[in-house]
């Protein structure tokens, strides 16, 4: 049965992707080239980072811990977000959800396996960055292994905490046990190693600084990863009720403001009523604020580091909204594509609504992070300014691979496309701004124009796709 479940999920994902790629050969080619370029780009980025971070790790005591915590915070936010978005048996449809499938089998093959595959891909890219960084640090290249295992452990802990919290809210004892277990894992590491901040990941930081062995660090981080995965499974298997509600659209089309505003308002309602999106944004915001508070307290004199790391996690969480925008709008196409309002106009209104919603949430999240880890206003503005690039890329990625509540693989692929597009836009637009300013264009104007490109790209991609969709 297990092989039947796994092969069904994989087959459906491949068959969904095939027509999308066949209909957009240029996009497919660009995606392939981008995927091929990711590893070399990551190595280049790692070498550049290593040249700065390596000596800093040797010089400053807190740098290695901050690196480990930054990695852990990002991994925990990603783990929480993907675990909460994973559809479980919903992927089997209305009939087979009633089939006699053991909860553990369902978790293993419909949630854990796709996420583990995605984690493996993410770890491969992370290794390309971390190996050169570790090689430049006193511990040497081998210390990248415990760093990666630490990331894996943090991702699994994030998933266990998110799933445990969801279960505990629904009255599941297993959910409460998973939550307590995650706290115990951290506490045991903190007590044994004498560092409350890094908990069981402390040996990875120590190894990076060349003060402890790689094997011991791998044992600590690997054990934490295994226990965290077990806690995640415990919470997920005993989660009462369905993973997601039907999330049906109950919006009433307002007539005030014409069809364009009506489409935007309906899109905003659709997105805000998606339970999986609310959970994803909520979970990453909580992780961001908590992580920022911990870092600000730990780093004492430099709370802005906590703000940057927490704010980045919040930024990633809010990107789930524009990623889902086109897919959610497409869900209602059976009704709206027959209306006299051009589908391209409606889709662009929906995309703009998603952008507005994401920026609103980002402003709120950043304010929360700022309250616990105050930072100069320029840093607040810088993170808010990264929004257009990330959210524009998210709209485009969500158009290429439309969001489906019941498609774990689709969601992961959309997030991967978001990462690749955001990186490409960031590097490309950064280069353009540099060239423009050296040619005499005022920096503010060049930056403003560059920041307008990704949202326009994202909104335009959605409108074009919607126009092609119309019979």
């Amino acid at each position, binding site marked *: 049965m297990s092989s*039947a479940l796994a092969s069904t999920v994989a087959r459906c994902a491949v068959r969904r992707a095939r027509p999308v790629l066949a209909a957009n050969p240029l996009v497919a080619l660009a995606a392939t080239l981008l995927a091929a370029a990711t590893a070399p780009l990551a190595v280049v980025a790692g070498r550049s980072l290593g040249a700065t971070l390596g000596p800093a790790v040797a010089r400053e005591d807190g740098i290695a811990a901050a690196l480990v915590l930054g990695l852990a915070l990002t991994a925990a936010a990603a783990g929480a977000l993907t675990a909460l978005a994973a559809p479980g048996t919903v992927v089997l449809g*209305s009939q*087979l959800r009633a089939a006699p499938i053991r909860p553990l089998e369902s978790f293993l093959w419909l949630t854990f396996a796709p996420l583990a595959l995605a984690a493996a891909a993410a770890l491969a890219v992370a290794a390309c960055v971390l190996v050169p960084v570790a090689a430049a640090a006193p511990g040497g290249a081998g210390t990248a292994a415990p760093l990666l295992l630490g990331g894996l452990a943090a991702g699994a802990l994030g998933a266990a905490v998110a799933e445990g919290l969801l279960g505990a809210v629904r009255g599941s004892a297993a959910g409460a046990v998973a939550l307590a277990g995650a706290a115990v894992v951290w506490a045991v590491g903190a007590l044994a190693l004498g560092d409350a901040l890094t908990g069981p990941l402390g040996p990875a930081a120590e190894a990076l600084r060349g003060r402890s062995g790689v094997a011991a660090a791998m044992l600590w981080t690997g054990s934490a990863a295994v226990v965290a995965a077990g806690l995640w499974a415990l919470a997920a298997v005993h989660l009462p009720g369905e993973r997601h509600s039907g999330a049906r659209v109950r919006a009433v089309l307002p007539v005030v403001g014409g069809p364009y505003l009506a489409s935007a308002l309906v899109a905003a309602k659709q997105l805000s009523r998606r339970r999986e999106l609310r959970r994803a944004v909520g979970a990453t915001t909580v992780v961001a604020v908590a992580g920022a508070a911990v870092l600000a307290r730990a780093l004492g004199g430099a709370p802005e580091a906590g703000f940057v790391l927490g704010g980045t996690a919040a930024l990633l969480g809010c990107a789930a909204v524009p990623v889902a925008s086109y897919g959610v709008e497409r869900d209602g196409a059976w009704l709206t594509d027959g209306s006299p309002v051009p589908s391209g106009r409606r889709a662009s209104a929906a995309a703009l609504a998603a952008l507005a919603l994401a920026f609103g949430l980002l402003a709120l999240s950043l304010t929360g992070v700022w309250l616990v880890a105050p930072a100069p206003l320029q840093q607040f503005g810088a993170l808010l300014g990264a929004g257009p690039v990330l959210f524009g890329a998210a709209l485009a990625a969500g158009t290429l691979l439309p969001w489906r509540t019941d498609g774990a693989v689709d969601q992961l692929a959309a997030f991967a496309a978001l990462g690749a597009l955001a990186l490409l836009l960031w590097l490309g637009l950064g280069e353009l701004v540099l060239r423009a300013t050296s040619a005499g264009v005022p920096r503010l104007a060049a930056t403003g124009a560059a920041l307008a490109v990704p949202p326009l790209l994202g909104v335009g991609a959605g409108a074009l796709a919607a126009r092609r969709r119309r019979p």
Partner: protein
Amino acid sequence: MTHLNSIEPLAAAGLRKSFGPARAVDGLDLEVRSGSIVGLVGPNGSGKSTTLRIIVGLLAADEGSAIIAGAPAGSLAARAATGYVPDEPTGLDELSVAEFLRLVSALYREPPGFTARAAALLAAFGLERRRDARLGSLSHGLRRAAAMTAAFALAPPLVVVDEATAALDPEAVVVLREALHALAARGSGVLLATQDLSFAEAVCGGVSLLSRGRQLAHGSPAELRARFGAATLEGVFLEAVGRPARLEELTDVLGAR
């Protein structure tokens, strides 16, 4: 799989289910014996689908119990003893009909005779030449026929069909009727929900009339007709549930130029 005729396919007592302040099912008792076909009829929102979803384990009842072939609803044993046809089969659109049936067989631990029964049902529903068609490419009616093929080929102790005749063409309705009779004849219990009162009258040995989550009446179609002094089940329905309000006003407004 549980032996037929050894334990009743379904015995439910005191089922209650609320969604917020709305009570969807309110103290429902239900029994389906081996070889019987029981129909749930009632207006939209009367709790038919919610009741079926509790029985197949997709929803947990707030109160009451449902025992399927000796096992509590929602347990693995109960799920293995139930074949379910939802009102709107969705999901796995990318699988072909044949792949879908193979998956169903695998998930239910390959019941003996599944392949032969599935082949016969496919032929009867006219799906044989669409074995390789993707589920997502089928019309709503054919998609429901594929779902029925999967559920009926399991030949489980309890067959649960929601909105039995919805979207089916007249030929498929005949196939459905014969298939349900055949399943009942081999010992399965059948519980179906339908708005098609003539179908319920023709197929069901027992009918439960629901309104606002409560059971207004239960009996064979003949007993219900006699009790309510009506010539048809539709007459029973209108007597028990009430006639549509303000029909005259509706026709006046709609008909006004």
